[in-house]
């Protein structure tokens, strides 16, 4: 298959080119597969070899090609190719570029494994694999301790999620005796079993880890330590959507566990709002995008929680387009400024780097959900579903969307408008970097067509396509009247427009920069400090853990366990020391002792007689 070629490690200077060619090749292969695939057939499984086969457990190393995996493959390889291309320019000066490309390719392999696996365990291979690559790439510049810390944090948080996935798998295996998606989904339909709630909850824990939801989201902003293409590919477009993918994959199970869906809904909403609020006052261009990613992922989970799997996948797709675009654009900006990431030191770049500016504008508009751009369709679909469920959720999500609009435009305005506040001389990026930007910009504009709703004369093609692979989609129903939908869109669009206006007024006309955190009002400072969640986690988990680790060794092990072991021996020796004194060396005493012993034994004998 296409995977074999991806494994190849690259060492030459042309590594970038080769890597790009490889991933582009797999993109072509994916496209060919896509063309040749008949969605009505439901999908097929390609077994590579027996993997685990012991005592009734048969888990083959098999791949599954169906609508869902193909969609994800296209996203992964397509965007992957663009980002590889982009990286050639971006990583041009780094001496370890070959390593970088090797790791990036390894990531693509793992990600493909994740989406193509025909059973949970194969998906888990990819699941952990992308985690490892993420670790490697975040810590790519290994000489900086903070980056290493961020890398470890990402891996460990993912691992915590993985515990959930492992438990879910174990549970499902126990219940169904297999881990094949197809078999489980077949067997599961109609089953009403509290076990499923547990299993889906565990899966969701896994998803919160990988897709950066509350409570395991703090690693994602830190993950921006990696090179920007990595942020774009892994931490925006592909890996973080793995959680959504897994949920859609097991949509049948989630449909049977409404309780889990509610939890997902609320956590998704909370994450969306929390992350959006944090995004408001961040000054690091990549951090803003990172929180925006977390927030958008929250929307996707809301969609999942609402049972609207196609909407989630749709948003995954469009988000992949515009968020990759935004990240690459940000990367281009950073590249242009020679590594500067603080938006307070940017401004007025519109004139210097036109292509970047223009594409970034498209991306911002898309994420804000300006009408007819891709984000508009996907986000509104989610909002519509939310409204159908409850106006409160709709209201909250709408608020989140407005926040998104605000901080994204803040970012746009502060970076590209006004006057330049930095020192480095900005220059436009090379063609290898701008081509991907332009492609992605186009995609961000037209991406909405993929799942054009009926309202706009479409047939929701993506939904119907995916329905063949994820049976859960069959359960979703959007039963709002066209009028309601139009009204909702109207409200949304109006408010978004208003917020953009406000942002314009605040950041273009007056260029309001955030001052030092210390000077902020309390509440604002709290938000600017990311609700102090990192600190909270550090105080709640990291420090006690370190304390525990130190003290288990110092106290439990050295003061209890080891002395306990030695104590028994020492006690024996001490007893020996005492008993030894009987041997006084005095002959008379010896005789007396013998006599006493004799009498004692005599007593024993007579007593037991």
């Amino acid at each position: 298959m296409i995977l074999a070629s991806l494994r190849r490690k690259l060492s030459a200077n042309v590594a970038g080119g080769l890597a790009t060619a490889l991933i582009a090749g797999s993109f072509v292969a994916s496209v060919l597969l896509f063309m040749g695939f008949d969605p009505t057939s439901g999908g097929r499984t390609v077994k590579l070899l027996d993997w685990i086969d012991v005592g009734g457990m048969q888990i083959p190393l098999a791949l599954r090609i169906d609508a869902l995996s193909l969609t994800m493959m296209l996203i992964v390889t397509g965007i992957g190719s663009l980002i590889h291309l982009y990286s050639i320019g971006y990583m041009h000066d780094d001496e370890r570029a070959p390593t970088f490309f090797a790791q990036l390719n390894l990531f693509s392999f793992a990600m493909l494994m994740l989406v193509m696996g025909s059973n949970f365990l194969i998906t888990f291979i990819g699941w952990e694999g992308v985690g490892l690559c993420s670790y490697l790439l975040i810590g790519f510049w290994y000489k900086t301790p903070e980056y290493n810390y961020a890398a470890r944090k990402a891996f460990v948080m993912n691992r915590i999620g993985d515990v959930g996935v492992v438990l879910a798998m174990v549970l499902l295996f126990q219940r169904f005796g297999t881990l094949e998606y197809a078999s489980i989904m077949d067997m599961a339909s109609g089953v009403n079993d509290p076990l499923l709630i547990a299993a889906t909850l565990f899966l969701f824990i896994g998803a919160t880890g990988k897709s950066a939801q509350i409570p395991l989201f703090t690693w994602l902003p830190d993950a921006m330590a990696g090179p920007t293409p990595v942020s774009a590919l892994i931490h925006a477009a592909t890996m973080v959507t793995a959680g959504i993918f897994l949920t859609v994959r097991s949509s049948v199970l989630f449909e049977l566990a409404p309780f889990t869906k509610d939890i997902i809904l609320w956590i998704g909403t909370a994450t969306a709002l929390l992350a959006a609020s944090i995004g408001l006052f961040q000054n690091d261009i990549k951090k803003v995008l990172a929180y925006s990613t977390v927030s958008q992922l929250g929307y996707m989970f809301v969609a999942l929680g609402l049972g609207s799997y196609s909407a989630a996948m749709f948003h995954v797709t469009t988000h992949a387009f515009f968020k990759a675009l935004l990240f690459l654009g940000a990367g281009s900006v950073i590249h242009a400024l020679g590594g500067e990431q603080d938006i307070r030191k940017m401004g007025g770049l519109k004139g210097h780097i036109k292509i970047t500016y223009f594409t970034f504008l498209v991306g911002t508009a898309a994420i804000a959900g300006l009408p007819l751009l891709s984000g508009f369709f996907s986000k509104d679909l989610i909002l519509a579903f939310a409204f159908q469920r409850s106006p409160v959720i709709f209201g909250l999500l709408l608020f989140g969307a407005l926040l998104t609009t605000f901080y994204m435009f803040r970012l746009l305005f502060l970076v590209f408008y006004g006057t330049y506040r930095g020192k480095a001389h900005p220059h436009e990026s090379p063609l290898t970097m701008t081509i991907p930007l332009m492609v992605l910009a186009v995609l961000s504009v037209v991406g909405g067509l993929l799942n054009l709703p009926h309202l706009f004369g479409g047939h929701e093609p993506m939904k119907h396509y995916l329905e063949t692979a994820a049976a859960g989609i069959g359960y979703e129903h959007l039963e709002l009247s066209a009028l309601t939908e139009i009204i909702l869109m109207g409200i949304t669009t109006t408010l978004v427009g208003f917020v953009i206006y406000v942002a314009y007024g605040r950041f273009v006309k007056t260029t309001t920069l955030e001052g030092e955190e210390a000077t902020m009002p309390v509440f604002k400072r709290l938000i600017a400090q990311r609700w102090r969640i990192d600190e909270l986690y550090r105080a709640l988990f990291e420090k006690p853990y370190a304390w525990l680790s130190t003290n288990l060794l110092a106290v439990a092990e050295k003061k209890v366990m080891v002395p306990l072991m030695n104590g028994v021996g020492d006690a024996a020796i001490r007893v020996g020391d005492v008993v030894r004194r009987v041997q006084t060396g005095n002959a008379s005493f010896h005789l007396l002792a013998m006599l006493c012993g004799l009498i004692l034994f005599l007593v024993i004998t007579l007593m037991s007689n």
Partner: protein
Amino acid sequence: MSALVLLSVLGVVLLYLGLFSGRGILAPVGILGLLAALVLFAADWHLESTLFGGLVIFDTYARSFSLVLVVVTVLLFLFGMDYYAKVRENVAEHYALMVFSLVGGVLICSFTNLVMLFLGIEILSIPLYILAGGKRDSFRSGEAAFKYFLQGAFASGFLLMGLALIYGATASFDLAAIEAWSAVTANGGNMLFLLGLFLTLAGLAFKVAAVPFHFWSPDVYEGAPTLITAFMSTVVKTAAFAAFYRFIANIQLPGAVENMLVVMTLFTLFLGNIVALRQTQFKRLMAYSSIAHTGFLLLAFLGTDGRTPDVLFYYLGTYALATVGLFIVLTLAKRAALGDENIRIFRGLFRRDPWIAIAAMLMLLSLAGIPLTAGFVAKYRVFVLGIANGFIWTTLFAVLMALVGIYYYILVIREAFTPQDQESKELAVAPINWLVISLCGAGVVALGVWPGLLRI
């Protein structure tokens, strides 16, 4: 039995040789004589010959034990060739007394009459009182002799009292008659018999150094000349156990006495092992280890089992082998360390003489009971007997104490295999000693691998 006569004559001859000629030929003559006795013992193996009007019977049991006694004495005489090389006075007497003591040992292996038991024990012991004080100018040696004598005589009194009471109850000194009597009479019904049995066993327990009749052993082991210590812990111990078992083998022991033996076993196991933990003088350590081994051997006595004599024989034979070798190694190390007997003197033995160190290690491992050495097979069989006879908890205790035992042997091994801090004198190993040590070292392994070689 001509072997007995030969041995007695040998003793006298040795005494006379001491009067007339050099010390050089004493040991060779002694060894020759012993070998001749060996041949006589081994001849007519299956013949049961009686002696002294039935006071003594040489059956397979007696012959086997006698063989071991003689072989070990030969080894000790070989060692003696080097040990007494520089001693001027009384060497002949030493050899002669050892031979006399040996005669006593042979007698108590083969007694069938309590009179002979008593006589044998005294013949065994009285020369030892003298031998223990063999270094006439050494205070320690004198103290050892005195303590040994005093406690020995004291214990003899109890033994005698016991014998007299048994006689009073059964009207016979003959073992077979007593056994028959005990089989007929209800257990424990007869107070005289019970008391007699008790006191006799106490007297015998003194000889095998079982707690609480062990007090002599550490002091005497430490004070006596090394060769004599080796003799005591091998020949004397073996003979005493042979007698002990011969005495109780067929007597229907009252339950009360059996209980007492269990308690004695537990005490002996405990004290021997626990106190040995903190011994730093090697000979004292060996004394306590000897007490500990007494405990294991007593375990084999509990209950009746046809396999017991075999186990006893194997255990004592291999124990003697290891002990003889170790005492020779001690002597060598002690010479290099100018008379010190602390186990520190073994330090660096492996660097100084790897072969001797390895042989010593094997012997220590055998005493500790580590597999592939004879000591393991011996202990293993004892444990099997213990459990087979229903003494599960006693055996468990013995197993635990075996672990404690391993500790102090390991400490000695550790010394031998730790490089020494400062250079000490080279080990001067006479070829004859090297031979004996090698024999012992190889012996414990060979017997551990082919346990069938040593059986009654």
